[in-house]
């Protein structure tokens, strides 16, 4: 099972213990995960994505069998189409984008173009709803959570689009999922790291209503405890304990 929501690098708003690739490799082994799509944590707050991607790719070189780069492509940046093609040709299994951090609204034409281009290249586009709970966010961190309007606009962009949305809670997920046609719903996968388990049992409810196959495994390391996703699975009611979630490895080219 691949972790679709891991990062390396420092976080601007608090000290993270050892956000380094070699530590991530050990953590994945401890958690029984075969690898991770890895983003570069400073990237959302940097204007120019080139340096962030270079740092990411260089840091992952010694660990490429386990850590797969999920670099960032900013579709309002000159030559982004070339950057996307190069990154995919170099073996990136997924591309990340942060429309909230780039000030892009839900109907931004460049984001739509990026989603379609990723679809044509058969790589999923990874969207991050949030890095931290709103209640603890720094006053300087003003991007806000990703909205359902952003997600459904991209999901409707075309049949080739594949989205992996990480960090959503039940409310955002349901608003998005039930605003899409069945075909459009199948273009969106969700991780469940931020979805509440028992006693509210939001995760169990969603497994029942939208299906286990819509969920993928994401830890949000190094921001969050990797144990949380596994705990959510382990605390599903007995009748759902064997529900099969999707491995993002199956989404590759």
């Amino acid at each position, binding site marked *: 099972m691949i972790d679709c929501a891991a990062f390396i690098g420092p976080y601007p708003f*608090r*000290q*993270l*213990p050892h956000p380094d690739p070699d530590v991530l490799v050990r953590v994945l082994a*401890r958690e029984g995960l075969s690898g991770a799509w890895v983003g570069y944590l400073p990237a959302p707050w940097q204007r120019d994505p080139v340096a962030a991607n270079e740092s990411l790719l260089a840091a992952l070189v010694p660990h490429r069998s386990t850590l797969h780069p999920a670099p960032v492509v900013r579709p309002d940046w000159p030559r982004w189409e070339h950057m996307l093609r190069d990154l995919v040709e170099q073996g990136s299994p997924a591309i990340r984008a942060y429309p909230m951090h780039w000030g892009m609204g839900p109907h931004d034409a460049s984001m739509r173009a990026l989603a379609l281009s990723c679809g044509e290249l058969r790589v999923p586009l990874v969207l991050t709803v949030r890095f931290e*709970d709103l*209640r*603890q966010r720094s006053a300087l961190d003003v991007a806000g959570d990703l909205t359902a309007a952003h997600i459904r606009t991209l999901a409707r962009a075309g049949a080739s689009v594949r989205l992996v949305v990480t960090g959503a809670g039940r409310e955002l997920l349901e608003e998005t999922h039930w605003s899409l046609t069945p075909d459009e719903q199948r273009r969106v996968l969700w991780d469940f790291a931020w979805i*509440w*388990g*028992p*006693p*509210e*049992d939001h*995760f169990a409810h969603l497994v029942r209503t939208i299906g286990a196959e819509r969920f993928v495994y994401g830890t949000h*390391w*190094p*921001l*969050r*405890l990797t*144990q*949380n996703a*596994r*705990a*959510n699975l*382990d*605390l599903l*009611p007995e009748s759902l304990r064997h529900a099969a979630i999707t491995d993002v490895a199956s989404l590759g080219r």
Partner: protein
Amino acid sequence: MTDPLIDAHAHFYHAESGRGDWERVNAARMRAGDAIGVTYHVVSVLGSYGHTSPTYFPSPTDVSRGNDVMRAMADADRERVRWYVTVNPNHTAHALDEIARGVASGAVGVKLLASRRADDALNDPICALAEEHGLPILHHIWQHRTREWPNQEISDGRDLARLAARHPRVAFILAHLGGGGDWAHTLPAVVDTPNVYPDLSGSGVDRGMIDTALQVLGAQRLLWACDLTMETGLAKLRALEVVGLPEDDLRAVRWGNAARLFPPGTFPRCVAA
């Protein structure tokens, strides 16, 4: 046999709490507790949870009704459930009566919400009565209060530390270190007030929180708990197991500290184990 485990911060709903699925939610707590290995749940009912008066400012009627149903639920599951008596300090006489009534019917602690700032003088008679009965006080806390938030008069670690300093013989359980706000602010705010004991509950599972809490406060001042999200409780339990804590420290966080803070005899199955 696995080591005992006490969830020091749990809630039950009831028929008058405005949600039709209250029994399912309560049952899910016990189902998950069994899966995690919880020996005792220390539970409170927060009035009507906003149905007939605000959750954090419950009316005296709702406080009493909530405590009544809480007592009945605890009596129905003596094996696994202990309970806090909930009070609203804005109604001093009622709060003191509720504590006396609660102690007479088996309450083992006092639950303070966010009805009044923690360091407000109205909390003093409540603390004094808690001391008289040897009860710990679980106090709802926002980690680092930087502004007011609607529907609660929030307190943070600094506020609670001021109250705790006035009542050094009362144990104060600082609610949900992972429950929103900045936990890194809370730890230095209470480090010099030894009768404040943060519980680890809350939906937040920040990496670094447990390690830093252990570093700053030590294992003897932390209590494992879940509050509203038991998957985060299980994740923290598993994290505690991999941070390399000495066995005695792990035992303290799992149940030993709670057994020390609550009245003697509260958790016989832990002591027996």
